[in-house]
């Protein structure tokens, strides 16, 4: 059943990444989109705008979710492709462990900054 749960998680994470990424891109491009309709807003790409978002729990939650789901979806997908190359069971265990370690490291690196900023 492990493979089925992983695949279901892959599908769900893919759908959620699509939604969260859509929100992220919409926010990043919000000044351009709203500017088209004659509405002026602060540049979302400016450092001050980013810091302001980083101090709001909702945005931190969205970004950490996007990072975690994206990392899981991408790395699980990579593992699925590696499985098709028919490495030995021992090699696959090593590769799986490396993928998990890689994911944990980058999740930690990516969540450290927003959590620190949220605390300030």
């Amino acid at each position, binding site marked *: *059943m492990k493979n089925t*749960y992983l695949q279901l998680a892959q599908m769900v994470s893919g759908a959620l990444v699509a939604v969260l990424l859509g929100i992220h891109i919409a926010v990043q491009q919000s000044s351009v989109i709203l500017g088209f309709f004659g509405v002026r807003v602060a540049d979302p790409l400016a450092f001050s705008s980013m810091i302001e978002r980083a101090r709001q729990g909702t945005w931190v939650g969205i970004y950490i979710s996007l990072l975690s789901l994206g990392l899981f979806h991408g790395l699980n997908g990579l593992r*699925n492709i590696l499985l*098709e190359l*028919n490495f030995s069971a021992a090699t696959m265990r090593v590769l799986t462990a490396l993928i998990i370690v890689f994911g944990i490291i980058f999740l930690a690196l990516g969540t450290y900054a927003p959590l620190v900023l949220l605390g300030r």
Partner: protein
Amino acid sequence: MSSDSEKIVIFKIQRFDPEKDARPHFQEFRVPVKRGTTVLEGLLYIKENLDSSLAFRTSCRMGVCGSCGMLVNYSPHLACHTQVEEFHAKKLLIKPLPNFGIIKDLVPALEPLFEKHKSIKPFIMRQDEAEMETPTAEFIQGIEDLDRYLQFSYCIKCGLCLAACPTSASDKSFLGPQALGQAYRYCADSRDGGQQQRLDIVEREHGVWHCHFAAACSEACPKGVDPAFAIQLLRQRVAARALGAGKPHNPAPLAATPLQVKPRVAVPEFTVKKP
């Protein structure tokens, strides 16, 4: 092309005799072709008139046995079921089915296909083993029950789907569209009680979740089985089981022994008088 006119088509065929050749090579043959000539008829012409050493499989010559699968102009076809005229070309490139080893010339080694098929237990499985060993009656199966799997039962094990599958090309351990399609065929059969065992088999590594849904298998299938569809339906069953959402399946019951047998219509008297 009128029905009487004949033209020459070049058959460029991959040759390989493992006892003589280091690697495959191509040989060209000029084959007279008229309207309705199949690729198989062209190959038989070559074997009978030009080169009797050409090796290929053939049997029914009517698209039901699955023997003559081969790659014609880069796509898998049954040679008996494919007319030369379909390609609108002066030259046909004919190679053995990909994703299989080569025994000789156009004869693929189909053992992987049969082994994978065997691994999914392609037979009706039930708890009542006594009835399976010594059948006493038929199982009741209505038209709706039959419709759920009939399309997938048309598989003739020709191997064209496995040859077309891009996942099978890179992952030799992948069960493949034929085995997975037949796993669904038996799971969907109302007479069968072996779904749990088959789902355990297909959800392992290199099983149902390794299909990328290219659907090249369905495009190649000469019998309209649509194995890509069967794989998606199989995935539904696997996912439903994992989530605890599947409906319980009770295999079709045995037909009751009839209490009263209708008498046969009386056999008419002979109309010819005996001498």
